[in-house]
């Protein structure tokens, strides 16, 4: 009944963390909150594995002659890409924050299929172990894109294991998406209409659509690659009539939408952070909600912009170029609406909001440079250069990882029942921002000047910018390690968090204790107001824009 509980100590109340103990209660749990934590820990581990490969690459690029052999360097960037894309970025926000929050935000007791949710984690772990086996046995050198015929015929590294790991791991993504779609359709609390859904839910709904429609295609692509590598029938080998560009089409049919799997949940988090710390309803709810769906739909129609120089028909390239420009529109709508939400809001600068500011700025740079790449003439100049690297790291790291860290901080009190140390957290956020820009901004210049990606050596005139980039990467690494330390500390020793430390709107804050009990709510929630009703007005959901 009481929306704001008095300060109750975490230990006094039964919650999902202390309801039972022991490894069985974790490894066989079907509670979406515990599965979210299982994902959180495993994904963090993969993040540091992938990060270690990045450290290796940046060390190598400190000097023009390089530190490692060409073969080693090829393996470093390949394993960095595979781990970061398939085992960190794709599951990061949906499988952790999404898993934890989707039922809480819509007022459900769990996801629609709790056992399938647990299964998805085991599949993720299985896929991850297979990929790690590929690493331990010597790695892969094809690049994370596995372009044929090199991957199918000529590479003598562990392509089969890596592709198998991606094939297996993909099913965890499919099952998570399926679970979210059904949950959002069928499990909403009374009064939680589509027009009242938090934008976090809209973002995850759009993400789930892509996961469900795209991931099966990468699965079959990996199957065909595996079969071709075993049989050498020539499916992707041009010397015997196979079509290597077909592989690229199949690969990017998933892998371009997959970048929206990676960024849409980040946008979903930012909508929550910006409204809460501006104390204002989102500007243009319908536009932000529908723009997520628009990104998901248009995202499936732009993959050909990866093939501008691959021998694709010029007319196809023109269509793909146009559509790539089009997908920038819904992304821009989001940025404009976040900005408009802050306008005349009571903006405060807690750590999650700092990450939100970081996201908006860096995503805008990443997005705008994406338009350079969608322009065919410019793309020809910068294809396979560091310009591309800088572009997608601004979106993936500057965007997604910022949103992930912002979200982790924002919901940390809800997840753990403890507060994190605000001073350290703000410091770390600034270190991450500074380190990130120092790492990746020089790469825009390097790419524009013509430094190609995926080479272990480079001409001496590029050294200054490369040294700057490596220095930035060291700062960035420290920026990631600091939260690891203080969040771990705060989990055990931090001050006990109240139910709603941010005075935020949303069922997870207003009606669920911190941490929530096993079935989320002590009383079945009923929703009577639109999302982000920070003004406290009694109002009906507007039907127009």
């Amino acid at each position: 009944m009481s929306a704001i509980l008095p300060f109750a100590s975490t230990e006094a109340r039964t919650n999902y963390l202390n309801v039972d103990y022991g490894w069985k209660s974790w490894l066989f749990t079907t509670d979406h909150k515990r599965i979210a934590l299982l994902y959180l820990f495993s994904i963090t581990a993969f993040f540091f594995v992938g990060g270690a490969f990045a450290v290796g690459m940046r060390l190598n690029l400190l000097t023009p002659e390089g530190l490692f052999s060409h073969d080693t360097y090829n393996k470093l960037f390949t394993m960095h890409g595979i781990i970061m894309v398939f085992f960190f970025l794709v599951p990061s926000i949906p499988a952790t924050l999404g898993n934890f929050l989707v039922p809480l935000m819509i007022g459900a007791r769990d996801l629609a299929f709790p056992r399938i949710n647990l299964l998805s984690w085991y599949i993720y772990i299985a896929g991850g172990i297979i990929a790690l086996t590929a690493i331990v046995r010597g790695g892969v050198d094809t690049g994370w894109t596995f372009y044929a015929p090199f991957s199918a015929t000529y590479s003598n590294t562990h392509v089969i294991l890596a592709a198998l790991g991606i094939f297996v791991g993909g099913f965890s993504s499919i099952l998570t998406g399926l679970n979210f779609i059904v949950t959002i359709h069928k499990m909403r609390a009374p009064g939680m209409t589509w027009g009242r859904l938090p934008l976090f839910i809209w973002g995850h709904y759009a993400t789930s659509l892509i996961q469900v429609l795209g991931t099966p295609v990468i699965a079959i692509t990996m199957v065909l690659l595996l079969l071709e590598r075993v049989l050498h029938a020539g499916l992707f080998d041009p010397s015997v009539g196979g079509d290597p560009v077909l592989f690229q089409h199949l690969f990017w049919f998933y892998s371009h939408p997959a970048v929206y799997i990676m960024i849409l949940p980040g946008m979903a988090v930012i909508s929550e952070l910006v409204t809460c710390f501006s104390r204002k309803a989102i500007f243009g709810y319908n536009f932000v909600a529908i723009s997520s769906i628009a990104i998901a739909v248009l995202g499936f129609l732009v993959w050909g912009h990866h093939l501008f120089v691959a021998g694709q028909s010029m007319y196809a390239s023109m269509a793909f170029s146009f559509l790539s420009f089009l997908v920038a529109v819904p992304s821009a709508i989001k940025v404009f609406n976040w900005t408009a939400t802050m306008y005349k809001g009571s903006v405060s600068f807690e750590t999650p909001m700092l990450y939100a500011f970081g996201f908006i700025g860096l995503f805008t740079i990443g997005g705008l440079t994406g338009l350079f790449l969608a322009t065919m003439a410019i793309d020809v100049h910068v294809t396979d250069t560091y310009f591309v690297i800088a572009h997608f790291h601004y979106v993936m790291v500057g965007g997604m990882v910022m949103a992930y860290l912002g979200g982790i901080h924002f919901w940390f009190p809800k997840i753990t029942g403890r507060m994190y140390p605000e001073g350290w957290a703000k410091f770390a956020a600034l270190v991450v921002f500074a380190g990130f820009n120092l790492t990746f901004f020089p790469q825009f210049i390097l790419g524009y000047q013509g430094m190609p990606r995926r080479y272990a050596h480079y001409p001496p005139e590029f050294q200054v910018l490369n040294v700057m980039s490596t220095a930035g990467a060291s700062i960035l690494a420290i920026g990631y390690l600091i939260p690891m330390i203080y969040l771990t500390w705060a989990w055990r020793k931090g001050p006990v968090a109240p139910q709603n430390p941010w005075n935020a709107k949303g069922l997870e804050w207003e009606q669920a204790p911190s941490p929530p009990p096993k079935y989320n709510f002590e009383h079945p929630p009923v929703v009577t107001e639109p999302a982000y009703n920070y003004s406290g007005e009694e109002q009906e959901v507007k039907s127009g824009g």
Partner: protein
Amino acid sequence: MADSETIVAPHPRELQHHFDDSAQQLESSTLGMWVFLVTEVMFFGGMFGGYTVYRDLYPAAFASTSHFMNVTIGAINTGVLICSSFTMVLAVRSAQLGQKKAIIAFLVLTLLLGCVFLTLKGVEYHEKWVEHHIPGPGFQYADARYAHQAQILFFLYFAMTGMHAIHMIVGVGLLTVLIVMAGRNRFSGAWYTPVEMIGLYWHFVDIIWIFLFPLLYLIGHTQ
């Protein structure tokens, strides 16, 4: 935990704790199954896309390889699968009516038809083995003009029918589970969701074959 259970009124055994009522649970299962089938469409869609590209590139080679497809077995198998879809529908109907013996009978019939299909498929694969039409080092093709292209087409043939056969094997396993469950009296007129869901899956796998048969066996066959 204790107080959250009081929320849920006394409920049927099959109703899971996180659903409000059986109707919500059934709707969720049905939507979940349809979404899963959409993922399957995309999975096979990748191969159908590859098929389309190569058929466009090498129409003559396609016509040539289709002469080596065993249309008789393919046609029989098509009939077998259509019949199995029919018996599956009857099993679902019996479940709705709560007729336990009829459920088991029709499920067993569906299972047997599925096994007939797989057996005939095995015979076909064996023929291909004997004729050296399995892609790989041992591949041989009579018409030298199409030696390379034919190997790609047989690769697609095996990938597509092989994936379909794997789905059939999974379906046979699921049917076995259903038969055991029906034998233990788990289904009633009020709750038979697994029969209906696996029915949907079975029909989907049949429909895939309905597309595979003309595309792989019949196109170009008369040329």
